[in-house]
């Protein structure tokens, strides 16, 4: 697509591989260090340390400080959901995206034209974050991680039920779920609580800090414990029989997993939908639990925004662009640097 810098039609343009608002002089989720950035959420492919000034929700800022340290940014400003802020000639608002705690869509208005950057989002309920709010706009910039019609995520309750059925079938084994430390981990703990699971929930040490932060930020989680540090004796190993163990994928695919008692390796992501791919990832129990919108949800969201133009980022752009065209909506793939489908889904 061609975009004239002098007179852009929409409040946002693509500037050196990142979304930029000329009227406000800020970037959204830039991967390289910039003076002014608005950050949608705390995942590392959206939130990078080193920017001069950063605007985000208070929760996202707290998460960034936990990951990158107090001096992650030159200056940080928190903006609550629904609050409006004037930056240069642009008006900015954040709206819940339902992806992880603190995740936001960025609403940018310039001269009565409104653009919404979805960030990563999902439409299904998540006890650890506020639900997505669809906002009418002229330009909707959507993520497209699962924008192929084969991805239709089942209800999370069904997937948790499958997990618990497996735990019941193999009480002598540990169930080890590979999770991303921010979001997926805490959502699974909360969903286990909601399911009434009363057995032990054990966290790899790499997941403890952000989980404690979630609780400090007011998210209610059932009881969990951290896995013992150092060398384990037989009793420590036996204590994990029948337990649900959460750990980063890197720990489960490496030596750490050997200490678990005959673990059932579980995956928890949207990628688990396609069996042969899930099988290749080495899991024994695939759980389709995703923090991204599935095909139906992406299509429904685009309709709800009533946008005339949709820009599609990171994911399966072609299929969604085709669908938009069949719906009479203009669409264009947008190639943002540093995003790929290697992202946890």
């Amino acid at each position, binding site marked *: 697509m061609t975009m004239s810098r002098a007179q852009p039609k929409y409040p946002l343009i693509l500037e050196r591989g990142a979304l930029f608002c000329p009227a406000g002089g800020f970037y959204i989720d830039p991967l390289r260090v910039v003076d002014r950035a608005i950050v949608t959420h705390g995942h590392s492919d959206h939130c990078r340390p080193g920017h001069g000034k950063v605007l985000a929700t208070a929760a996202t800022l707290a998460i960034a400080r936990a990951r990158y340290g107090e001096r992650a940014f030159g200056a940080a400003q928190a903006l609550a959901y629904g609050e409006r802020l004037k930056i240069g000639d642009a008006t900015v608002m954040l709206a819940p995206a339902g992806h992880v705690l603190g995740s936001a869509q960025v609403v940018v208005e310039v001269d009565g034209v409104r653009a919404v950057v979805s960030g990563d989002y999902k439409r299904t309920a998540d006890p650890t974050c506020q639900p997505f709010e669809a906002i009418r706009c002229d330009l909707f910039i959507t993520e497209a991680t699962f924008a192929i*019609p*084969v991805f*239709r995520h089942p209800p999370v309750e069904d997937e948790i039920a499958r997990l618990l059925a497996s735990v019941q079938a193999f009480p002598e084994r540990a169930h080890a779920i590979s999770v991303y430390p921010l979001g997926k981990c805490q959502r699974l703990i909360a969903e286990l609580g909601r399911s009434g699971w009363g057995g032990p929930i054990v966290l790899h040490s790499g997941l403890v800090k952000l989980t404690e932060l979630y609780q400090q930020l007011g998210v209610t989680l059932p009881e969990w414990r951290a896995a013992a540090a150092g060398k384990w004796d037989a009793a420590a190993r036996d204590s994990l029989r029948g337990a649900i163990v959460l750990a980063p994928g890197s720990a489960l695919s490496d*030596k750490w997993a050997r200490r678990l008692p005959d673990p059932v390796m579980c995956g928890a992501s949207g990628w688990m939908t*396609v*069996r042969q791919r899930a099988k290749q990832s080495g899991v024994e129990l695939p759980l389709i639990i995703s923090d991204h919108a599935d095909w139906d949800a992406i299509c429904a969201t685009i309709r709800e925004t009533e946008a005339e133009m949709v820009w599609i980022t990171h994911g399966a752009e072609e299929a969604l662009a*085709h669908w938009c065209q069949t719906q009479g909506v203009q669409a264009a793939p947008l190639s943002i640097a540093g995003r790929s489908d290697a992202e946890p889904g």
Partner: protein
Amino acid sequence: MKRFADLLTTLIFAPGRNEKLRRLQRYFAQTPDPDRGWALAAFAGEISLPSATPAMLRALVEARVDPVLFRYSYDYVGDLAETVALIWPSSSCCEPKDAPRLRDVIDKLLTLSRTNAPPILADLLDHMPPDQRLALVKLTTGGLRVGVSARIAKTALSEWAASRAVNAPLERIEELWHGLEPPYEPLFAWLSGAAPEPDVDLATSFRPMMLANAIDGALYGADELRADQIAAPETIVRLQQRLDPAEFAAEWKWDGVRVQAISVNGVRRLFSRSGDDIAAAFPDLVDALEFEGVLDGELLVVRDGVVAPFAEVQKRLGRKKAGPKLLRESPAFLRAYDLLRAGSHDMRGEPFRVRREALEMFVQGADGGRIDVSPLIAFDSWAELATLRADATTDKEGVMLKRWDGVYVGGRPMGQWWKWKRDPLTADCVLLYAQRGHGGRSSYFSDYTFGVWRRAADGTRELAPVGKAYSGFTDQELTRLDQWVRANTVERYGPVRAVKPALVVEVAFDSIQPSPRRKAGVAMRFPRFKRIRWDKPAQEADQIEQLKALIGARPEQGA
């Protein structure tokens, strides 16, 4: 249907054979007739629905889903059955209570014709959630592809029966199998202890084959085998101490496919070792079964009296139907070495000596062009046989020893038949890549690619990959190898690591053949680790020329 779909899902992800067996047993125990019988038929490949084709399914989907979106989806998923199952529009009527039972689905599928198949399949797909849709599509198009062969399913049946105190050995199930029909209710009644063994006519059924044990296992202890202390002179000494040569017949061990050829009461069948009927792939041989009885022997490809490389047998085995060109170029041949039934007389209770004599008479009367008898090797002492084995035209897999007084029993009875394979070839290779293993080995780098030196175009020496091995090391050695790989990684490609070319492994393999598709130009058959040469510098590993020289030493032939 839900239970069957759940079973398929867990089987896909079950990490090993034992886990699959466990899940199959649970399914057979918990599922009522006739559903479990239909599931068994599906695993055994006994359900054939020629009127439902992949193209028909594709057309059904494209009538419901934008064909462009379908194409993007198919490109992404890479499997038609799974794409159809995932992309099929979910209807609101998918209440669990409405989901059809497996038997109802099968009843409908069995009525399929070219004309009614599309609406029937569409209606079934409309009433199922995605995992059941996948199960349905796989049932319809054949080939469940969940890593369960007919044999594994029958093994699960046998183990399940044992858990119910019913003695139903795998061999007995296989023997009865071809006299039974889906959904196998009399079989399940027997296995569950509710009824006696089903009464079936076994004359034209598969007879479980008698298999040999490796002679090394009889002569060496487990520790010696692991430490690889087998040596031909020592083997001869031990044979002399333990076995009387006069009690054994010796034959060559052919490099073909073991088959059982049945021609009884006008019914002709050709069974592989696993009890699969492979007659359709070998019509030329089936035509030649002009006798009344059952032969046990080796299926080979023979042209003008010369046995062709094993690969040609494999090629024919891979074709469901052999075309005229293949039939002409790779004619099938049976080299018989046992007679299980002659006329109406079951020979299996006779000693080998009697069967052998009868066999020679029997085959004389049969078609001379397609069938012959595997000759006996005359020998007086083990040392003499060892010499014959070593000096043989090096185109046989080794020798077989059979007790003269042994009766024919299915399975692998101890002390009856021994295989004394040729010593493997070996080469010193350099470890190049390591890949994570599967199941219990998934945290170890346990799959190894290795190479040998060759001269590159510019004259420098480089390492060319020649094979991949996963076995031949002890658990302790695996732990040490894993540590070595982690400490010597130079590059990562997903689950694969390239390592510093510094570790030499002595690799054993059965044979080596030219393979123009590979960079090194050769391919090893069944490579495995023999020894890890922690001490040997990589520079001293073998050259590609040394490997190529071994091609002549052991051509891939069966006679």
